[in-house]
């Protein structure tokens, strides 16, 4: 194919604040009885006024800082005016000319620097339901805080988009600003996809004059399929000499193709103007928020590797098991061997629910002598083999990983008193012979 993709991503993240963006209603809307989390403000009743949720602003700033954005000292809200039944005021309070955060970047393991255009804050709309001929509106979601992230169209490959999206999901979870659960609509992805002819590297880079917006995609997998399909579709059309225009398309997982959706987007003039009901968002001391932020995964990992000499791989597993704090508490005792400790935790050789003291005790035992005699160990091993026919069968068929399970069983039977390496040795011998 003589085309290369040009992809940009637009993400909406639902913040996990206690209350909504501009009123005191609960922001926990998912699965709740319709229209039970409402008030004059989020219902857009005549005379109601918005009042900014500070926690939401802070969480937006944290997200922007995590993406290395510059934080504006004086940003402001604007009204985005359009009619839709799920938009009670007839406008959405959002940001346009001066977003809170802008001009950031993040790096992938391999690929271009991903430049971030903006990270701004806005309110969510209500939700429409169409049971039969009627349309019903639930305003529980109306006014919930959203952070919008827009990247520059710098992705050159689908895998980069997926990596970025997954990394971003983990980031907002680590920051504690959102659950980012795609099935619950807490993380919404829109990909803007175009293709351009592969050029001579000396030619000036030309951004395509159209883009296709892929919307309503609620899993990373579907997004990947949709983008791949779309790249192919566009290349074929361009080869046929068809001119492409700005369009919105959805993904049909059954037919495995994209299809056109509502056209109204391009015609729309939102008539943005500064929201007169709200004050300018004055942010001094954005660094104070930086100090408040939890350390992000990447940073944590390098710290662990540097401090304790454990491998990055093991550090990641420790992190994903949520055992970093536990591990570091154990390591306050300088006599403990870091590598042994981390192995014991991540391979679950010693119960990580034990107190730190108990764990250290078990670690010493495992290291030193065993409390189980060789005969008792043999009995235990034979018993485990006898009572775990299926597992033994799987191991003999070649499933090596089952060995760990059998070792675990031996440890269980001997109440943790056996030495792990000896138990494994004995097992191997018996399995070979048996």
């Amino acid at each position, binding site marked *: 194919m003589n085309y290369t993709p040009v992809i940009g991503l637009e993400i909406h993240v639902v913040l996990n604040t206690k209350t909504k963006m501009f009123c005191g209603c609960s922001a926990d809307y998912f699965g709740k009885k319709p229209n039970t989390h409402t008030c004059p403000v989020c219902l857009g009743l005549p005379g109601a*006024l918005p009042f900014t949720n500070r926690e939401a602003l802070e969480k937006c700033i944290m997200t922007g800082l995590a993406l290395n954005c510059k934080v504006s000292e004086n940003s402001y809200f604007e009204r985005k005016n359009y009619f839709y039944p799920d938009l009670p005021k007839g406008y959405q309070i959002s940001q346009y000319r001066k977003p809170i955060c802008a001009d950031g970047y993040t790096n992938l393991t391999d690929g271009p620097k991903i430049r971030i255009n903006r990270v701004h804050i806005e309110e969510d709309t209500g939700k429409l339901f169409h049971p039969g001929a009627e349309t019903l509106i639930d305003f529980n979601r109306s006014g919930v805080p959203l952070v919008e992230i827009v990247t520059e169209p710098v992705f050159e490959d689908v895998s980069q988009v997926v990596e970025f999206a997954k990394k971003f999901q983990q980031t907002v979870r680590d920051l504690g600003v959102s659950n980012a659960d795609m099935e619950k609509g807490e993380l919404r992805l829109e990909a803007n996809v175009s293709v351009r002819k592969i050029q001579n590297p000396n030619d000036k880079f030309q951004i395509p004059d159209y883009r296709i917006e892929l919307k309503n995609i609620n899993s990373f997998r579907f997004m990947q399929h949709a983008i791949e399909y779309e790249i192919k579709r566009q290349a074929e059309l361009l080869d046929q000499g068809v001119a492409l225009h700005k369009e919105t398309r959805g993904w049909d997982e059954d037919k495995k193709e994209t299809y056109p959706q509502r056209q109204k987007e391009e015609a729309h003039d939102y008539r943005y103007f500064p929201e007169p009901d709200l004050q300018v968002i004055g942010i001094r001391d954005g660094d104070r928020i930086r100090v408040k932020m939890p350390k992000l995964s990447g940073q944590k990992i390098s710290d662990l590797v540097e401090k304790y000499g454990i491998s990055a791989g093991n550090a990641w597993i420790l992190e994903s098991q949520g055992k970093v704090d536990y591990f570091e508490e154990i390591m306050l005792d300088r006599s403990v061997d870091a590598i042994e400790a981390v192995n014991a935790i991540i391979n679950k050789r010693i119960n990580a629910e034990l107190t730190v003291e108990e764990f250290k005790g078990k670690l010493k035992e495992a290291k030193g002598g065993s409390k189980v005699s060789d005969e008792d160990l043999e009995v235990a091993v034979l018993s485990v083999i006898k009572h775990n026919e299926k597992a033994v069968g799987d191991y003999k068929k070649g499933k090596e990983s089952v060995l760990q399970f059998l070792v675990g069983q031996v440890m269980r039977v001997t109440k943790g008193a056996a030495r792990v390496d000896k138990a494994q040795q004995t097992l191997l011998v018996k399995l070979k012979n048996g």
Partner: protein
Amino acid sequence: MGDIISLGLLETLEALEKKEFSKEELNKAYINRLCDLNLKLNAVLAINYESNGIPAIVKDVFSTKKIETTTGSKILEGYKPVYDASVVERLREQGVSVLGKANCDEFAMGSSGENSAYGPTKNPWNVSKVPGGSSSGSAAATAADMCVFSLGTDTGGSIRQPAALSGVVGLKPSYGRVSRYGVIPLGSSLDCPGPITKIVADARKVLEWISGEDGYDSNVSNKFIITSNKLNDLKGIRIGVPKEYFGKGLDKGVEGEVRKAIAKLEELGAGVVEVTLPHTEYAVAAYYIIMSSEASSNLARFDGIRFGHERDKFGDEATRRILLGTYSLSSGYYDDYYQKAAKVRTLIKLDFEKAFEKCDVIVGPTSPTVAWNIGEKADDPLAMYLSDAYTVPASLAGIPGLSVPCGFVNGLPVGLQVIGKYMDEETILNIGEVYEEATNWRKEKPKL
């Protein structure tokens, strides 16, 4: 007991305290008066016969829980809010009850009361004349002693101008002094809820009750001074008289009464100095663009889905302003209209700041004319807009303005406007009170 209804707020509170009459007698007197006059004046829409506190009439743009709130429009016919506006709550806390909802120009869009979808309100001094607008019913009801006091809103002059035309006191507070929560908005950066009263001291009292942060309106501040320092005279006060408010368009009779009033202020000890507000001539244009733009957006929520009727029920003036506002905000026009108007607004604000280096308050006519005949300007929206010429600049600048009665022309009231520095209602109220007590305009009542 026939005098009960002629009492102002402070007088009524004192009389109740002294047990000169009961709250029941008070309300009975006012309800009777209201019912006597309302067919003639059409000042009040919804009436609350169960009123049992200090009876006040509030403009129909204030949300009143369970009491029909129409904003003078057919769009909200039958609409009963589920909540009270913050200022209404504050008044209730002080023992005030809502006796009725005052008729007004539809969505507060107007300067005469003739844009109400429920028929125009009549001026109590001459029922063939307009009472002014958009707080037409509030001003007329107060002038006709149909309530102890009333509440209006002032966006471009809608408290001050009807107060002037109807011979009562009207106070537009500084923008951000009084919460707008629950006030159905016209121009979000301009609307100021405020009192229309029989005497200046009453306006001061009501302002005290309704001022300050409420946790719902982000633009409200508590940074204002309240004192009860009564002045005896105006010694040391510097009065600025802007030459731009005494030019073409000002009726000779009105000018005469206003100049006499300024002479009185001098007599009372004030120093008078001429000031200039050079961008005055652009104020009406800038105002109509900004206000219409904000209004076009504010009125978008009236989609007939959750409440109210369909959008074809908007009256002509509302439709006109929605179109104008939408146009001014449109892509390609935003810079030339909305943004330009916003810049002019800043210049007007700076005009006042500069003038206030030379004086403490600015004084002039509230309205270029006295009340005109019903129907006279109804076909000429631009002529109607120009009647706001002296009130609009203070609205754009967000500063407070008081209108106090200062005379008559052909039996129709004239108002003196006193404009103050931001959050300095104190000074304009002081001046108004001293002037009022040194004259007898307060004693004049319409013959009804």
